[in-house]
Every structure is written in structure tokens, then in C-alpha cells.
């Protein structure tokens, strides 16, 4: 625990850790000092001068170096001759801060008046209007009337595309540099800068392509005015028209907490997602999300959505009722004599996957995951993953991050931010082994290379050296990916890395463990609740594929049941199509790559007659004679927790737990942290790794020979793999189509 110092702010004394800035110390006791350029996640710069306060320190006698005291024994406080910025001044023992004096009040009014001289005041047409720090602070602290001549208003360009995704309104910009600093300090994409000086100073991008960053959308959240807006949300809705639903991003295994903002749209006859906003979870994504998570939501209202069940009649898929489709499915399954393959994709929530698994086993089906899903090492991750209470924030000096075959920024962008902070800001050591260069390579203290697809062999050869490096570290976090590895070889890699943890004594320790880069939101969860077969049978009578996306191949079968949200290529070969729901239209839980189980909530009504996967599974089961009566995912989770040992201690109540987070985000003081949302839906909970609960033996590893199929398994990139993003209006320019990759 850091040393505490006492500071008195407007008569209230508070003890805060040494080094805390006055603005933060005041925030802790509910004294809201207004700021524009300061952001609790960024380094202070003191540019906007909005946070000027009166600061005094105990007078020190230069001769005795002792605090001078008055006749009552109280220290004599010496106030600075001028007002001081609260955002750049760290507290010191005995400091006295006055924020309510006439001088401070006048200073706030003065600065706001200055800011408004060049600000267009076009709030009625500004996307930020309604959640704008400048608007709010002007109402709270600003002058009632402008003395600045309106005709003399400074005019500038209002629609400057900084990139494909972000627009800049130069008039509205108040030159706080938050966007520049976010790109420099958090994303480490140095693509924005000030150009020119004085009143002519403006934001420019100098990268090619412009504003080239996967995290650029966050700048619109922390922009204290409407200067930066996303191409996606720009002029689409006013903030006060929006409904909010707390959710979890499904595009990778990080499990970023998000809030879906929806609005009633007549054209869809229902609500539509207008934008995706980050939701604070300091253990997962802090207050950031990547651009894919922010912009890829249009698929929920895609024209390709399946609205009704389809049945193949005379070679054509025709719309049917649920009654007919479910009966056909039940009859076909009953007649299949157990020669059934039930394949579940890894975007299916835990509850639905669990119920499907129960049904599959009850009817003797071979339950597996989609061939795209790296299920081969989920059990290794369950055993040797990061500890129950692991926290990225604690990684720092003395700790080691080992990244093997992992392209963290592409495959789990927000983890890239977390690891970068641990290494660059807090001094953790980073060792990287990969066959190519990744962005994380910038921070590595050691870089190793191996041949494409030779990660397991490399780890085996280097085992001694790596174990030594691990031993020297306090905590060891091992990130790995399965690029160019087939399932069995990826499993071998995971096992070898787990053995390293055992050898160095890090297995089962809280902040140490494996961090696998799964492709989707619930790969770990689906594998946890299904215990899938890893090998597919050569053929079956019936294949029932649930949310598997676009796998290259399905086992040959006489009858295909395809349960999907979109009209994928797979649907074309279906005999029965069952329309299901996306994450936005139902509730459930996902288990992230670091085994954090998190709830998401319903944001949209179902399109047409589409149903959640658990409902479909239950209806099929009842037609097969099982008396299942689950009314909601919550009830299923209860059953799941009883059945799956790892989830035994989890419940919806536990997952919905909310704790006070620092910094406070998304409350009424938007000026402080930006427009990211407060987390009231639960921070989730991680289940313990097996190694934490009992001693595990090392794996006996034999590395299988590489296969052509494995070697052809390219890097799974969020931004460069067209398959993963369907019908997204944005980001297209950043994506290379599958054909181009192949």
C-alpha cells in the first residue's frame, strides 16, 4: 500500500495515496473539479486551465525546516500567488485546496467564456449534444451571456474525415489533445498530432491510411465536445433518444463489456442498435473497446437474417411454422438411431450450449464443436489458465509476459492494450516468439523466431531457457495462439507451455497462467459446458449444426439441420433451417478467454419468429419425450452450475455483482471519464483454474507431425479476415477478403 497523505479540500480532510492528483483526490470525496483536457486514464497536461483551484501548503521555516504554526498550534498555510491546475498538482501532506472561492468561481467562468468564443455553439445539430462535457460544464459554471461578438466567431471546416471511421469538426474542437494522447499513450498508434499554432492549431492525422488505428473509436468517447464523431453514429440519433442494454462483445475472446444503445426505428418495426459503447470493467477492458467491437453491429439488422423456420420441399427451402419444423427435426433425430452429430459454434452462450449438450447426449449424438473452433486445448486452459483473482493491473516490474505464436493486437485487441500497459508503463518483461512480426514486438525485451507452424517444437527445444526466465519472474503470463497449427499440435503447444508453468512453480498462482487467444466470445465456455469430442466422425445420418458460421466442411450426412442467425452458405445445403437469435436479442453468459463468466442482457426484440437456441433445444427435447421446463437462461445456468464442476460456485447473482470502480465513469460527470458507460450489470466472475485447487502432474507431450491442413490455418485476424465480419457497413476498407488472404 502506498504511503497516504492528508489533504484538506474545502474543509474536508481525506487521506489519499502519495502522488494522487488534487483533481482525483477531490473526486474521491465528491468534489467535482471541472476538467476538459485531464482524463484519469491519460497523463495530465494542464492545457485547458479549467481546473484552476487555490492551493496552499504548510509554511516551512527555511531555517529549521519545520512547519510554522500559528498561536493555536495549527500549521500556517501558504497559498500560491496564482491559481493552480488541480490536474497537474500531486497532493502533499497538509495541503489545503479551496475550490469554492469567488476567485475560483470566476476563473471557471473566464475559461469557459474563452472556450466558447471560438466554439460554434451548434449544440442543436451536434451529436454530442445531451452528453457533452462542454455543454454540461457551461450550464454548471459558465457565464450566462457571451460578451464575445457573435459575428466575430471563428469559423472552420466542419466535416473533415480523419479516416474512414472518424470525422472531425474543427470548429468544435477545443484543443484538449485527449485524442492525440489516447493514440500516443494508450493505443500506441501515433497517428494524430496538432498542426500549426495559436488559434490556428488543429488536429491532423498524418498516417497512411489516415487515422490508422484499431482503437480510434475511443477518441470519440473521451472527446469533451462534439469534435470527433464516428462515421457510424454521426447524425443518426440524439443521445437522449437512446435506450441502453448492457452486453458483452462477441467478436473475440476478451469479453469486453459494452453497452448497446438502441432506438425505435419504424423501418425495422422495432428497436435497432444505433451504437456500441464501452462499459467500464477495470478487470477486462477498462473503458476501451476496439473498433471492431464498436462498429460491427449491423449484422443484427442484416437483410440476411433468418426470420422463419425453413424446410426443404422439392429441393427448395420454403418457410414453415415452428410446429412443423420442430416436429420434422424431432422425427428425423428419433429415426437417426444415434448416428447424429451435434455441432455447436463458439458464439453460442453457455446456457444454450449446455442445454444442447444435454439433449445431444440424451439422444446419443456425438457432441462436438464446429471444426473452426480450437477446442483441443480448452481443458489445458481450464487447468492452467490465469488465476481466479488475476488482474492485469497488477502485472508490472518483476513479472514476465511470454507471447508464443500470438498476434495479440489482431486477435484480442484490448488485451494488447492491457499487456502494453504492463510492459511499457509498469515495467513487466516481455518475451516474444513468433514466425513474423506483430505490433507487440515493439515492447519485447527478447524476440525469438521459429519456422511457420513450428511453435511446439520451438517451445520444446527452448524449454530449459524459458523455464529459467519464468523462474526469475514473480508472475508469468503466457499468451499463445494457434496460428498455422492444427488442433492436436495446438494442444501440444498449450501442454508444453503448461509444463513450463509447472516447472517454474507458477502453476496455480493467481497472476500467472495461460492466456489462449480464442477466436470468439465463448470458445472457452462452449468447451467447458459441452465437453466436446474433438474428432469428427467420417459420416453420420444427421448433422445438426448450431451457430457454426461458415466452416469449410461438414461431415457428409443424409440430413442437415442448420440453426443460424444469418442466411450463410451453409443454409443452402440444409434440410431444415431453424432461425435463432444474436447476442443482442437474448440474455445469457459468455466465458471469456481468461475464463471470466459475464452476463449480457437483451437489447433488441427478436426478428420475426427467431428463437433463442436454448428454446429450440428444449422444444426439440420435449418432442422427443423429455420433460424440460426451463423458463429462462437463469434457470438453465442454475442447472449448469450444479452439473459443470468448474461453474459450481457461479450464479447469476454472483455474476451481477457490481463493485465500485476507479475512476468513476459514465455518471453525470461525463467531463471526467468520457461517455463510456457505468457498469451496473455486473463485472462477472472468473472460476478457479484447476491448478489453483489441486496439484496437477505435468503433461506427457508428444508433438504430432504437422498436417497440411494445420499449416494452411492462417492467422486468425479480427481486422484482416473477411469471414468474421458479415455485412458491416464500416471497416470494409480495413478488411482483406478471404480470397485475397488465400
Amino acid at each position: 500500500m502506498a504511503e497516504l497523505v492528508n489533504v484538506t479540500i474545502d474543509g474536508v480532510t481525506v487521506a489519499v495515496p502519495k502522488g494522487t492528483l488534487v483533481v482525483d483526490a477531490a473526486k474521491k470525496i465528491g468534489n467535482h473539479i471541472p476538467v476538459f483536457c485531464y482524463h484519469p486514464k491519460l497523463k495530465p497536461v494542464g492545457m485547458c486551465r479549467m481546473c484552476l483551484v487555490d492551493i496552499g501548503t504548510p509554511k516551512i521555516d527555511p531555517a529549521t525546516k519545520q512547519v510554522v504554526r500559528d498561536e493555536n498550534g495549527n500549521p500556517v498555510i501558504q497559498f500560491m500567488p496564482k491559481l493552480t491546475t488541480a490536474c497537474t498538482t500531486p497532493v502533499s501532506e497538509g495541503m489545503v485546496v479551496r475550490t469554492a472561492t469567488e476567485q475560483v468561481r470566476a476563473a471557471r467562468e473566464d475559461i469557459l467564456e474563452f472556450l466558447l468564443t471560438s466554439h460554434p455553439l451548434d449544440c442543436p445539430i451536434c451529436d454530442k449534444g445531451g452528453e457533452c462535457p462542454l455543454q454540461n460544464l457551461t450550464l454548471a459554471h459558465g457565464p450566462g451571456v457571451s460578451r464575445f461578438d457573435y459575428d466575430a466567431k471563428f469559423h472552420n471546416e466542419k466535416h473533415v474525415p480523419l479516416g474512414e471511421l472518424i470525422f472531425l469538426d474543427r470548429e468544435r474542437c477545443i484543443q484538449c489533445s485527449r485524442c492525440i494522447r489516447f493514440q500516443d499513450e494508450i493505443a500506441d498508434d501515433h497517428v494524430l498530432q496538432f498542426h500549426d499554432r495559436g488559434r490556428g492549431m488543429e488536429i491532423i492525422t498524418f498516417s497512411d491510411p489516415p487515422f490508422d488505428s484499431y482503437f480510434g473509436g475511443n477518441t470519440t468517447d473521451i472527446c469533451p465536445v462534439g469534435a470527433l464523431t464516428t462515421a457510424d453514429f454521426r447524425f443518426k440519433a440524439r443521445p437522449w433518444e437512446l435506450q441502453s442494454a448492457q452486453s458483452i462483445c462477441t467478436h473475440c475472446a476478451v469479453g469486453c463489456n459494452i453497452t448497446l444503445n438502441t432506438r425505435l426505428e419504424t423501418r425495422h418495426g422495432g428497436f435497432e442498435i444505433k451504437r456500441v459503447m464501452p462499459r467500464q470493467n477495470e478487470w477486462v477492458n477498462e473503458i476501451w473497446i476496439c473498433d471492431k467491437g464498436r462498429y460491427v453491429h449491423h449484422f443484427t439488422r442484416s437483410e440476411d437474417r433468418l426470420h422463419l423456420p425453413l424446410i426443404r420441399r422439392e429441393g427448395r427451402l420454403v418457410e414453415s411454422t415452428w410446429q412443423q419444423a420442430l416436429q420434422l427435426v424431432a422425427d428425423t433425430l428419433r429415426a437417426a438411431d444415434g448416428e447424429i452429430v451435434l455441432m455447436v459454434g463458439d458464439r453460442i452462450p453457455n446456457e444454450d450450449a449446455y442445454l444442447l449438450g444435454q439433449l445431444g447426449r440424451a439422444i446419443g449424438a456425438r457432441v462436438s464443436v464446429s471444426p473452426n473452433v480450437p477446442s483441443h486445448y480448452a481443458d489445458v486452459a481450464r487447468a492452467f489458465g490465469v488465476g481466479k483473482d488475476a488482474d492485469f493491473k497488477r502485472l508490472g516490474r518483476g513479472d514476465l509476459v511470454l507471447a508464443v505464436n500470438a498476434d495479440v493486437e489482431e486477435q484480442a485487441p484490448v488485451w494488447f492494450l492491457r499487456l502494453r500497459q504492463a510492459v511499457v508503463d509498469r515495467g513487466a518483461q516481455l518475451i516474444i516468439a513468433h514466425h513474423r512480426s506483430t505490433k507487440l514486438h515493439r515492447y519485447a525485451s527478447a524476440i525469438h523466431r521459429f519456422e511457420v507452424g513450428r511453435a511446439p517444437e520451438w517451445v520444446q527445444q527452448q524449454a530449459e531457457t524459458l523455464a529459467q526466465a519464468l523462474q526469475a519472474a514473480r508472475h508469468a503470463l503466457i499468451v499463445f495462439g494457434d496460428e498455422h497449427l492444427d488442433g492436436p499440435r495446438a494442444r501440444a503447444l498449450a501442454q508444453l507451455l503448461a509444463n513450463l508453468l509447472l516447472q517454474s512453480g507458477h502453476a496455480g498462482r493467481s497472476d500467472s497462467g495461460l492466456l489462449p487467444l480464442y477466436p470468439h466470445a465463448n470458445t472457452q465456455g462452449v468447451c467447458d459446458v459441452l465437453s466436446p469430442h474433438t474428432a469428427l466422425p467420417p459420416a453420420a445420418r444427421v448433422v445438426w449444426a448450431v451457430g457454426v458460421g461458415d466452416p469449410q466442411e461438414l461431415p457428409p450426412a443424409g440430413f442437415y439441420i442448420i440453426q443460424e442467425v444469418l442466411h450463410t452458405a451453409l443454409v443452402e445445403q440444409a434440410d431444415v433451417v431453424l432461425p435463432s437469435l444474436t447476442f443482442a436479442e437474448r440474455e445469457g453468459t459468455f466465458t471469456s478467454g481468461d475464463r471470466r463468466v459475464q452476463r449480457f442482457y437483451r437489447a433488441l426484440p427478436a426478428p420475426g419468429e427467431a428463437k433463442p437456441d436454448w428454446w429450440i433445444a428444449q422444444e426439440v427435447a420435449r418432442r422427443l419425450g423429455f420433460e424440460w421446463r426451463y423458463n429462462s437462461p437463469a434457470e438453465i445456468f442454475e442447472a449448469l452450475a450444479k452439473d459443470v464442476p468448474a461453474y459450481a460456485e457461479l450464479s447469476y447473482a454472483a455474476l451481477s455483482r457490481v463493485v465500485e470502480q476507479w475512476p468513476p465513469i459514465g455518471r453525470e460527470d461525463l467531463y471526467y471519464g468520457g461517455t463510456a458507460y457505468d457498469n451496473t450489470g455486473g463485472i462477472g466472475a472468473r472460476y478457479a483454474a484447476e491448478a489453483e485447487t489441486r496439484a496437477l502432474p505435468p503433461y506427457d507431450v508428444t508433438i504430432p507431425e504437422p498436417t497440411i491442413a494445420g499449416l494452411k490455418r492462417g492467422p486468425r485476424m479480427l481486422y484482416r479476415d473477411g469471414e468474421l465480419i458479415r455485412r458491416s457497413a464500416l471497416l470494409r476498407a480495413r478488411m482483406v477478403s478471404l480470397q485475397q488472404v488465400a
Partner: protein
Amino acid sequence: MATFYGSRNKTMERHVLLRDIDVPNIREIDVYLANDGYAAWKKALTTMKPDDVISVVKDSGLRGRGGAGFPAGVKWSFIPKDVFPKYVVVNGDESEAGTFKDHQLIDCNPHQVIEGTLLACYAVQANTAYIYLRGEFYEPAQTLQKAIDEAYARGLIGKNVLGSGFDVDVYIHLGAGAYICGEETALLSSLEGQLGQPRLRPPFPAQQGLYAKPTVVNNVETLANVPPIVLHGAQWYRQFGTEKSPGTKIFCVSGCVNRPGNYELPLGQYTIRELIEMAGGALQGRAVKGVLPAGSSAPILPASALDTKLDYESLQAAGSILGSASFVILDESVDIVWAARKMVRFFKHESCGKCTPCREGTHWALQLYNKLLSGYGTLDDVNMIGEVAAQMSGKCFCLLGEFATSPMLSTLKHFRAEYEAFVRAHSGGLRNGYDDELIREHVIDPAGNLIAGAVGQKRH
């Protein structure tokens, strides 16, 4: 080349700084060496420890000549001993309006500047010095580079200087023409290749300066004082000047005087009036209306303050600052509103834009002055100028913004009647003799109409 300073402004028997006046061609290394050149450098390297150099400079009481007047030796003693590398950065950005002392030093007596730089390097044990010159100093930079090359050739700079084991390199860097880069932290940012904007303090440059390493930033003139101090000792130096402001100082005199130029004088010995007399008196015998003691940054002093002594304390007591001692003399023919607008326009143009009060305040103030000068101003606008300046004052990130208020506040304080007379005389947008200037600066168009955005009020 560079002879326009001439030798006519001889104000001392033997100059300490402007030795080019006493010794012709001292810019040549042989001439410099023949006149005690690099003697202090040799003395320091052979007979003095680094701390000895610091203490002699401390004892001399030498105060920074860039404007702030902070004791140079004390500044050096702040440099931590155990952190390497360290840097000495010479501030030759000389951008204050009316300041041209460093220009003459670099151009006519460059070796003394180099020697001072080397002594500073030795004192704080820095192996690298960067001389940051303003972008317009293209020719002085060539002179200085030639001098540096000569010194390298004589083994006075480089590896193992004079067998002492001390390595030192000196580089010149030309800025890109920004006034703000004379502010030491903005200078360091600019030197690092970043945007020329001031940095937060703390950390101070002495702890984390150039490339986040301990750095001494000294003005050219400050360092030019160091060789004679080291050579002759602190007591010798203290024979000049006053107790609190020891030494000699170069006074740049410009404006409405007959002989503008640099005048080296002991601090505190003469008055402003005497300085103006040395400079040939006011033009055409007109009366002096006001004096800007440190270019546009200093509050203007009215004629009643002409008997103020020329040192840091006296000028402060008179309500202004000595700063870089660039005296701009305004005589009775100068229109104060016009002069104030010139200065405000300068600050508006040079504001870096980092902090709100300076960026917006200078912009607003200039618009008000434009309105006044083009003849549309009212008495309310005169009051407004004072309010905008007061609103900026005390809130800016660095001193540029604070300085920007002094032409407004001080002219209003001493010459308010002139403002009011100006408004009365020119009300209604009458042609008032400033048309060409206002057209050139895009305040009015050639037809005499106000240009939108340059002032608040359209012509009705």
C-alpha cells in the same frame, strides 16, 4: 558582413561581452586566442574542478540574461551529479521584439559564446551541448559553425580536450521561427523534434530536460559572461553592477532613437534617460512618451519613469521588468493604440495554442484592437480589452500568455486617455491613416469594409 552594429556604441573602456568593439576581428580564432581567448577554458580544465567552476559563477552573482534573471551558478548546482548523460542547451532563440544582443554576440564574438558553453559543460559534466538558434539566424549560425569548427581543429572541443580526459561536443540547431521556443521547455521539445510547446514543470529541466535527462538551459549572453568570470574571478566581476545585480548587461535600444544598437553597461549604474541619451536621444528631439524595457513582454513605462536605474530590482519597483533589456523607445509621435495593437498581434501570432486563455484571449483581444484601429471601436471595447487581459492574467500555462497581457494592461493603465481620444477621433470608421496596414493584415478590404472574423462588428 554583420558590421551594422559598428563600433560606435562604445560605452565602456573595455567591454566584457561586446569585445568586438574593442578588438577588431575577434571573431577570428587567432585574434580571440591572442586576447585571452580560451584562457578560462584552459584554466578550468587544468586547474579547476567542476564544482570550482560552479562556485565561482555562483559567487559572481551572475544572473540569467534571458529574461528571468535566475542566478546561473545556482541553476547549475541543481544538476544531479550521478545521472548521465547530461546536456547543456544554449538558448539563442532570441525572439523578443527589440532584442538583438545574442545576434551580435554570435556574429561578432562567437568564440566567447562557445567558451562559455564549454565551461558550462565542464561545470555540470555534460558531454554534449546544443546551441538552439532561431530559424532566422541563418547567417549567424554559419559564423558560429565556422567558429566551432575552428575550435575543434585547435583541439578545444572534441575528445579528451587538451589532454584533460574531458570529452565535449557542440552542435547547432536552427529552430523554425517560433517565439514560444525561447521558453526553455518549449525549446527542449522543439530540439527533440516535437511540437514547440511548453512542458509541465515539474519536472524541471535540471531533473528531466532534453530527452528526459538533466539539462542546463542558458541564454547566449549568460554564457558569454562566464569566460571572464572564470578567468578573472568573482570579485573582479562584482566590480561591475550592484550587489543584487552584478556584472554588465547588454542593452538593446531601438525604436524612436537616433542611434539604435547594443550598449553594454554595468547594471544599476545608469538610468533609462541616460541610456536614451547614449543612443543619441529621441528622434528629431521629440519627447519620449513611453519605454518598453523588455520588448513587447514588459509593461510599458511612462516618461515619468525615465529616471529608473537599469537593474532588475529598480525596474521591478517601477512596475516593469528588466527581462532581456531590450528597450523600445516610443516618442510622442507614436500612437499608443497602434503600438499596443502591434504587440497584441505579435502575441496572437506567436501563441502556441496549448492553453485556452492565451489561445483564445489573444485572438479575442486582437479582434478588439482591430475594431478600435479601423475606427469602429467604442469605449466599451476599450473596457473590454482590459477585461480580456485581466481574464487571461494568472491563468496561462506559461509566461507567454501572461506577457501578452502587459501591452494591454500597461498601456491602459498609463495611457487610457489616449485610447479614449482615439475612439472619439475615429468613431464611425473614418479613414485614419492605418488603412494600408489594416488592408495588409486582412482587417479591412480595399474598399474599407471590415472583413468578417477580423473584428466583431460588421459595417452597417
